Structure formats: C-alpha cells, structure tokens
C-alpha cells in the first residue's frame, strides 16, 4: 500500500493539483493531505517549510479540498491537528464529509488528547469518516495493541520522532516488534525516504509505506514532475520490481 502525502496548496495551486493527480497516476493507493496548522508541533523542518509557503497565500482551503476531490478518485485522508479544531470539531467533520473526504488523521491525538482519544475516534466515525490513528515508538505497547483495532483503513506507525529529520533508528527491529501488536494493516511512515529503510520495513511485516517529506524535498530541488517520478519508483519497490 502506497500512502502519499501532500501539503494542501504546496508549492502553489496549479502545481499542487498536478502533484496530487500525478501521485495517484504513479500508483498511490491513498492520498494524505496536510492542512496548514497553527503550530506544526510534531512536524519536522521540511514539512514546516511547506506550511510556511502555503501560509502566504492559501485562505480558502475548503474550495481547494473540493478541487482535490474532483481531481482524484483514491481515498483522501486529511492530516490535521485536533488542537486546531477542538471547539468546532463536529462542524468541521461534517464539512469534510460533505466535500467528499474519506478519513481523518490527527497526529496529536495520542499525545495531547490521550485521555479522551476514544471519544474523538467515535466522533470521527459518527460522521461517516474513517479514523486513521497515528502511533509511534513512544506509544506504549498495550495502547498500540488497543488502537490498532480501532483504526480504520490502516494503522499509521511513524518510526522517527519527527518528520523529515533522518535520526538513526533501527527500522527493522521497530517494525518486527510492532507487527506482533497490530491486528490491522500497518503503514509505516516518517522519514522512510531511503530505499533500504523501505525494503527493511516491508520485509519486517509492514503492509505499506507513507511518503511525504521526501516528495517536498524533491519539489524544492527539482519540481513536481520529479516528485511524481519518485512515487513511481516507490510503487515499483512495493510491487517487488
């Protein structure tokens, strides 16, 4: 399973729409779309740069989400901080459903809202949306086991403590370990930019990979088309080519 991430509106409206279409044509099974947060507290420097650029022009993100929906036919999962929506959650989820979004992932759910995570998961599901749960190595084993059954589509497991900083981690031992706890599809993300890491993750039992930071870096260097070629390459690895 290839889950590709794009920051909504990055690098600009036209290129963003070219990117999401291209990522799907290249074989992405699911698109994860990041909404500009007030404080990207659990994102790394690369994703933060993309938010910063988007913050200079994007005001009406709903219309761009609608355009995204019209542009592609794979499931769309919105990545957004729960912190930004706590007071208006019900309206926001209803609106997401209305524009055709399929699922929601809150990166801060099990960190800042861990005492009430079930309530929020139920709220997402009650709007007919999928709740995709984000976990990481700092989530205790019993909790990973518990939420893996609640998570829709797949369980997201980020192997690095923050996006886009290539901190040294033992990808294979992390995945081997978490695989035994998860009764669900397991998608591994956060800095799996390197092909070797990706192969190790798959070999250790991951069902898929989530790619984000590396696309943004590629766009910064060589533009959208080049990022799309990367997606094609990742698809090839997943298909064993």
């Amino acid at each position: 399973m290839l889950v590709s991430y794009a920051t909504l509106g990055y690098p600009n409206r036209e290129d963003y729409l070219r990117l999401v279409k291209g990522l799907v044509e290249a074989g992405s099974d699911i698109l994860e779309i990041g909404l500009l947060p007030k404080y990207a507290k659990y994102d790394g420097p690369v994703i933060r740069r993309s938010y910063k650029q988007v913050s200079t022009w994007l005001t009406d993100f709903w219309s761009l989400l609608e355009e995204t929906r019209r542009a592609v036919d794979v499931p769309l999962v919105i990545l957004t901080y729960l912190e930004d929506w706590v007071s208006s959650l019900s309206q926001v989820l209803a609106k997401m459903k209305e524009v055709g979004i399929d699922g929601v992932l809150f990166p801060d759910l099990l960190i800042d809202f861990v005492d009430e995570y079930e309530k929020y998961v139920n709220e997402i599901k009650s709007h007919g949306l999928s709740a995709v749960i984000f976990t990481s190595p700092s989530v205790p084993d019993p909790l990973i086991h518990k939420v893996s059954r609640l998570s829709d589509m797949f369980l997201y497991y980020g192997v690095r403590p923050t996006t886009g900083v290539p901190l040294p981690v033992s990808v294979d031992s992390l995945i081997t370990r978490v695989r035994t706890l998860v009764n669900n599809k397991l998608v591994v993300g956060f800095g799996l930019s390197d092909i070797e890491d990706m192969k190790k993750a798959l070999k250790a039992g991951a069902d898929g990979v989530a790619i984000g930071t590396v696309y943004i870096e590629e766009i910064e260097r060589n533009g959208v088309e080049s990022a799309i070629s990367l997606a094609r390459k990742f698809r090839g690895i997943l298909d064993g080519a």
Partner: protein
Amino acid sequence: MANSEEIIPSYWYNIIPDLPKPLPPPRDPPDAEFSRIDLLRKIMPSEVLRQQFTVERFVSIPREVREAYINIGRPTPLVRAKRLEEFLNTPAKIYFKYEGATPTGSHKINTALPQAYFSMKEGVDHLVTETGAGQWGTAVALSARMYGLNSTIFMVKVSYEQKPQRRTIMQLYGAQVFASPTSHTEYGKKVLNENPNHPGSLGIAMSEAIEYALSNGYKYLVGSVLDVVVLHQSVIGLEAMKQLQELDEEPDVLVGCVGGGSNFGGFAFPFIGSKKGSKYIAVGSYEIPKFSKGAYNYDFPDSAGLLPLVKMITLGRDYVPPPIYSGGLRYHGAAPSLSMLIKEGIVDWREYNEKEIFEAAQIFLQTQGIVPAPESSHAIRAVIEEAREAKIKNEKKVIVFNLSGHGLLDLPNYESMMKRIG
C-alpha cells in the same frame, strides 16, 4: 552467590514501552529559525541518538562497555545500613546502592562510558561537554581517556575558580578544561564582550560546548535528562535488583534524589518496570521547588534553548536556581519519563530544605561513615522519614535508596553548612 561480574547486567532497561501513556515526543518551537532535532543529529554520536529514540525494552550493553564497567569497580556495592537502622530504632531494613564507589565519585560515569565508547566506534576522536560543579565533566574526562579520546570541558567560570580540585582531576585525566565564557567560541566572545568579568552559567557553558563541537567536527555528550542517559543509568537499578535477589529481599520503598532525574530513573525504573516495590520516592530540593511549584509543560531542557523542547515538570528554563550547596540539584526540570510517572501518581515526591538534609547527612555519616554528596543527602532524609514512619506503624518494610555520590569534594559546602546550621 553469583560472582560479582554476573551482577552487572548485559542489557540496559528502557521504561518507555512500559509507561502508562505515550511519552510526548521532543519538538521544535513554533517558528523555529533552525531545527533543534536536526541539531541533535549533528552533535551527538549516532548510536547514542538511536538509543535516545529506541522503543526496545532492553538494549544490549556492548561487551567493551561491560568490561569498562568492571574496570571502574562495578558492580557498586549494595550495603545494609545496619547502624542507621539501629540509630533510628526502626523495624525497617535499610539498604543503599553506593554509586560513590566509582572512581569519579558519582553515578555520572555510567553514561559517560558508553557515550564515549560509541563515539570512539564511530571514529570520533574528541569529545566536548560542559560542567557546572564538575561531576559530569570528570566522568567525561575519564571516559574519553579510557577510550583514547581527547576531551574538552567547558567549566562554568565561577566553579572553575571555586572548585579547583574538580578542575585538577579533569586535567589529570587529560582533559582540556576551559573557564566558560571563553574566547574559543563566537558565543563566548559575545558574552565576554558584554561583560569581561562574566561569572558564567551552565547555559553559556553548554552553548559554548555545542558550538565548539559543531565547528570542529567533535561530538557532544549529554549528562542528564534525556532518555538515553536514563537508559544507561539503569545499570544501577538492574544491579541492585540482582543484589537484593541474592539476599532474598523484596524491596518495598525505593528512594533517590532528583537533579535532572537520571540517577533516580536509573535506579528506580527497573523496579517500576518489573513491578517490584510499592512506593517510589523522588526527592528534590525545597529551595528549587520543581515538584511542588513546577508546571508540566513543554520546555527547553537547557537554559540556552539549543536542545528540542520536551514535556516535563519544569520551573521554566529562565528560572535561576538559588546558590545552594547541592550543585547537582540546581536544575529547572525533570526527565520527561520521570515527570510523567509523577504526574500519573506512580512516583511520589518530597522536597527538603538545606537544614533537613544537613541533619540527615550528619546522621548518615556518623552511623555509616560515608560522607554523602549533599544531593544524595536529600534521599537519605526521605529514607529516615520512611524508617521513622515504619517504627510508628511497626512495619518491617525494606527501604532501598541510591547513594548517588560521595561528598568528599563537597567539604567546603559542609563547612559552610556547619557554620550556618551547626
């Protein structure tokens, strides 16, 4: 009886997978002009960094590090404080793990050694760190030497001048010791420009050490607070667990003092993780009231603000600790894992003032003979109170504490306390 080398564990224990809740991850501040998480990658040895973020419950101790532990006299003794029990006339049994028995006189060497070893394996030839009172700098200086590496220690200028013995030990070990602020870094130059007689601070020394490591391609070693340091310190608790087993004792109460939390965590976490003991007491200083007055917030672990934000109990990084005798407790926060365990009610806390700990130190040294570090005397005070409570309730409980260091280099502090408190 197991032979003494078998007491030393083959694995360090990591409490992260056994915490009641996810440990909030380190993060960069909003609108950060640079990524502090990325900075870690540049300054820390990569194996140390990998261990900082590991999820494995047990991390293998390399054979060479285990040999180095043996070489510095590990396992440290677990001693029954029989005379103290008699003095207190308590039915409780009291044991202490004596980390003062290491060559550098405190537990700090337990993490300096593996960090130096991993640096050497990665081809680094020069280590840099900062030190306040000198315990950490001493541990790094010796560890570097043991692996044939050079070391540079930025020692807070006021300590450099007032604690010449510590400086001398580091120099004997072969370290280059600078009185910070120095003119060896841009940051130090800036500080000296503003005030040529600046007394220095731990924050300034740390900024200088990090800058010096970065600009010369050296590695920087971290002495407390971070998870990897607590991981390495778990050698204390793992040894103590085996030593208690040998004696057929089941501990009830585990006690340790808290500066940044690595000696307490290293000692108590293996017990907490294996559900041995029913009460865990972290002891801080009344003069630095982080437990009673601190907030549980994201804050910088260092006063310079160069490391990533972590969620911890903190008085705020701008908090200036009063100039108390226990240099090792003059810190604004507590390790994230320990902070969470306190917030969740799994670990209790106490805070004692200078008078209370001075009395405790006197009782201990007059009954057991060891001059405890003023920091460790905080733990002793809590132990005495637990033992007295056991007497009132006539409970035969087993109290175990970590005597994190000796106080033989703190005699001027004790002298000052004698004059003031008597």
